[in-house]
């Protein structure tokens, strides 16, 4: 199964950099599904899930951004208290480490989507599936 590709960018922490990213993607007609910015003083890392990661990667690269693609999992979680716990607890008990995660709520579903970067993606997929957690496919992310 094709993993979901997250786009990550290295950006300096100065005015206008995030705007430049957004503008580049918007001009290319790439939709951003979810986005998070992690900052570390004078620089930061933007991570996002988009509808067309290959195209997003290409246009950002052409605009001279330092950009990479990373495999992540997108799992559906119940949009109720305890939804997140169920997932991270399963991973923790299976010794899968979460490097980082961020969540978003989709417009049509009653469920929230959790984007996870883990150290063992195959194992995470397996243990979560066994728990009956629904893992989104690329097509589903594209179609949101």
């Amino acid at each position, binding site marked *: 199964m094709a993993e979901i590709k*997250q786009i*990550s960018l*290295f*950006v*300096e922490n100065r005015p206008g*950099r995030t705007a430049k990213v957004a503008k580049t993607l918007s001009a290319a007609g790439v939709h951003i599904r979810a986005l998070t910015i*992690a900052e*570390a003083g*004078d*620089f930061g*890392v933007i*991570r996002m899930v988009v509808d067309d990661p290959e195209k997003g990667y290409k246009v950002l690269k052409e605009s*001279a*951004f*330092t*950009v*990479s693609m*990373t495999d992540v999992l997108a799992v559906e979680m119940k949009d109720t208290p305890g939804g997140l716990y169920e997932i991270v607890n399963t991973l923790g008990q299976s010794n899968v480490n979460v*490097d*980082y995660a961020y969540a978003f709520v989709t417009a049509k579903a009653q469920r929230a989507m959790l984007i996870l*970067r883990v150290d063992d993606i195959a194992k995470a997929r397996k243990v979560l599936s066994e728990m009956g957690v629904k893992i989104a496919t690329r097509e589903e992310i594209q179609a949101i």
Partner: protein
Amino acid sequence: MSGYWDPHIERMPLEDLHALQEDRLKSIVRYVYDHSAFYRRRFNEAGVEPSDIKTLADITKLPFTRKVDLRDNYPTGMFSAPKSQVVRYHVSSGTTGKPTVVGYTKGDIETWSESLARAFTSIGLGSDDVVQVAYGYGLFTGGLGAHYGAERIGAAVLPVGTGSTERQIELMQDLGTTAIACTPSYFLHIMEVAEKMGISIRNDTKLKAGIFGAEPWSLETRSRIEEATGIKAYDIYGTSEISGPLFTECHCKKGIHVWGDMFLTEVIDPKTGEPVADGERGELVFTTLHKFALPLIRYRIGDLSIMTNETCECGRTHPRILRILGRTDDMLIIRGINVFPSQVESVLMKIPEVGDHWEIIVDRKGPLDMMSVRVELTSAGFSDKIGDLMKLKKKVSKELKAVLNIAAEVDLVEPGTIPRSMGKAKRVTDNRKI
């Protein structure tokens, strides 16, 4: 491998070379004493006369000259030849003071071209080559110097000068450039632009050699250039005061051949002015033995290097100087510690996550000097985990500290952020007001 341009001179036994140097030293000392009011006054003040110079060793009786002498005698007060014999002037930019003017007789231009003809031949260039000269033309000596040298060996010269980088790359392809002469930092920029244009220097051009100089650069930068493009990168050396670019390494890359029939090279302790032992680091001092518009006697050029008199593997007997370690003018003193930008470069270029362009910023916070080094993060070095990036910062900082003995703040910046240069790169911004 490569032949010689002037085998008789280039392979002359040391004894004969020293005899030739001695003759030429005596003549030039007599010549400047008779023709330049400046030298006559200097020699008189030092209580030395041309007749006191009987052997090569007597050179230490002569006073040093420095850049400040050229400035104080601006524009042509140190010249020995009358105007009627001068056929060209070059003027150095004078970033640190008044500009300096150098002049050339017809013979001086010949000697200069001859020096580079030997050098270019020693790296395997000849009449079948196309040499793209991407040094600045005009008052700067780089462009015209390399131009005349390349023409002398019968190569086809492409006098592009600096700038219009995309056009340079197109011409390089269209005319089959085999060698390029420019600053190493400009070549790094050319590499970057070629990549953006989708052109591989290795596969899509005939380039085989780069003649890089006019700014100090490290062995690590050489490796990067050679690995990325497949060309051979050679160091070229010279400064406008002694004519311009004059000498290069030969194909053995074991030091720069400084032609002994044209120049007498000494290495001294910059503090005491005393000669250092063979193979020890010190400041280079040049005496022009065969230059007549503006001969220089014991000129302290300000560059630090190591000299060897051993015959090179290529068979050339003339002394060699090792890679220039830095110019005394470029040296930064940070918290009392001497730092050469070239040291910083050699550390950075060993770290693959760091790009080819970098800069040093020095500030003073309260009583303390702070040095920060800005480096561009390469795509290969980019991890989207913040922890990895912090580790990289620490690693660069640690390696700088190990070499420089001073803590430096490391800033990771986006590629393309640090200004690219067409000529001599400006690597240091010193914001201290002292």
